[in-house]
């Protein structure tokens, strides 16, 4: 079907596809930050535990 579209419409559809892909990537990246925050918090928890149990 895309082959029958005029150049302007084809450009618009390409633009929409790129937009969707970029939004999807951005949202995935932002969701990944939650995991990264948890990794950082886990590191903090480890140090707190070590301090309480072994280093106090």
């Amino acid at each position, binding site marked *: 079907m895309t082959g029958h579209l005029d150049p302007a419409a084809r450009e*618009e559809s390409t*633009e*929409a596809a*790129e*937009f969707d892909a*970029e*939004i999807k*990537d*951005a*949202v995935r*990246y*932002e*969701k990944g*930050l*939650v995991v*990264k*925050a*948890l*990794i*950082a*918090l886990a*590191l*903090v928890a480890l*140090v*707190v535990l*070590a*301090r309480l149990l072994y*280093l*106090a």
Partner: protein
Amino acid sequence: MIALLALKSLLVGLVFLGALPLILADYQFLLVGWHSRRRHYAHCRPYLPRITILVPAWNEAAVLGTAIDRLLHLDYPAGRLRIIVVDDASIDGTAAVAAVKVAKHPSRVVHLRREEGGQGKAAALNEGLAQVLADDWSQAALIIDADVILGRRALHALTRHLADPAVGSVTGYIREGSRPDNYLTRFIGYEYIVASAAARRSQNVLGVVACLAGGAQLHSRANIEAIGGRIDTGTLAEDTVTTFQTQLAGHRAIFEPHAAVSAEEPMAIAGLWRQRLRWARGNLQVTGRFRGVWFRPGTPGGLGGISFGLIWFSLLLLPMFMLCASASLVTLYFIDYQLALTAFHVLWLTSVLTFLFITSFALLIDPPVGRRTWREALLFPGLVNVLIMATAVVPAVLTLAGGWERGILLFTYVWLAACMAVAYLGKLAEPRWAGRITGPLFVYVAGYGPLLCAIACAAYLKELRHADARWEKTEKTGKAVSPV
């Protein structure tokens, strides 16, 4: 007896006040994790407005030609993009460079020449904004610095937010881009993850942005008109004033972390000092200028929110907190040694936990920059402060000092404030004999963070003395490379 107890309570309170900026920093970084739930993408649409890019240029011959070429080759419909170079009475080859580009692209590049220059970026931008509003062509205006390089799709990433009429302006993620880099640009690179990629994400979550990066801010035409069609020339922080005005006018300001923008940053302490002194003085001026908004939750745009106010003032007054905590610890040391030690442990344990959380998270937020700057990230507070944090985690280390324990503790209490003075020595040492070694040495030992605090102290003094607020531009040489 009661007076002594009251004095001790006050001193302990002042020590703990030093932990407030740390707790607020943790709070901001926790909000970063929340960004995935409070993002603006649901309101975005493919939107390609006609954009005028305003490039204020004051002696930018070294970077202007390449900058214009790069802008003309951005992935954006050519018929929807034009460039206005506002030549702020440059005395180098800026006018000639601009003239060549105008001759080559007469329909896309405009050269505005100001005959009287040096009045600051805002004054130059106002000439460009007048041109933007003079006809109906522009639907948006992008304000950039001549040295910044936008990623290939950065404009798309910015404009998609303007599809939401509630949004007035959008800024991108400014990354330090100088290549080859040096120790200072690596510190700045890491700092920008913390201050831009992380802090501005948290501001998106809070619904209020402190500052749209002056190097790349996109405004809708409606927003430019709403803020009066002009940029404030009364402060040294025109970008922050514009950000506040945007939100006070009822428009949203958005940080788009996926619009990557690369900028050249100072490679010497002297250049950094000039740049940051301007920013710090600008922030003090903004604080006074908008004194009616702080801690008034009903203020439009969220600027009067309690969280936002606490974050703003904790950064603005950070050096004061450090001085107060240091002085209080030293006083407590002489009147109640054990109490001082306990307060010290609480303060420094908070520091350690904040340092671990923020550093590890920040390095993960932008892994490519993190891989390049992790050493500077670890030494951001300075080598001595990192060692002090280690003793807070492993107090037994102090017992190794034997009879020196008390002396070492007194040193650590004093160092909390003294690190700023020692970092300042880096600035003094840099232009002298062996300055290429001693300058960085002072920064690594005393810390890049304390260096920024020293600059903030200098800004306090300049503002108290009502010193001349000249626009001291950062020299750019075209060392930045593309962010993509």
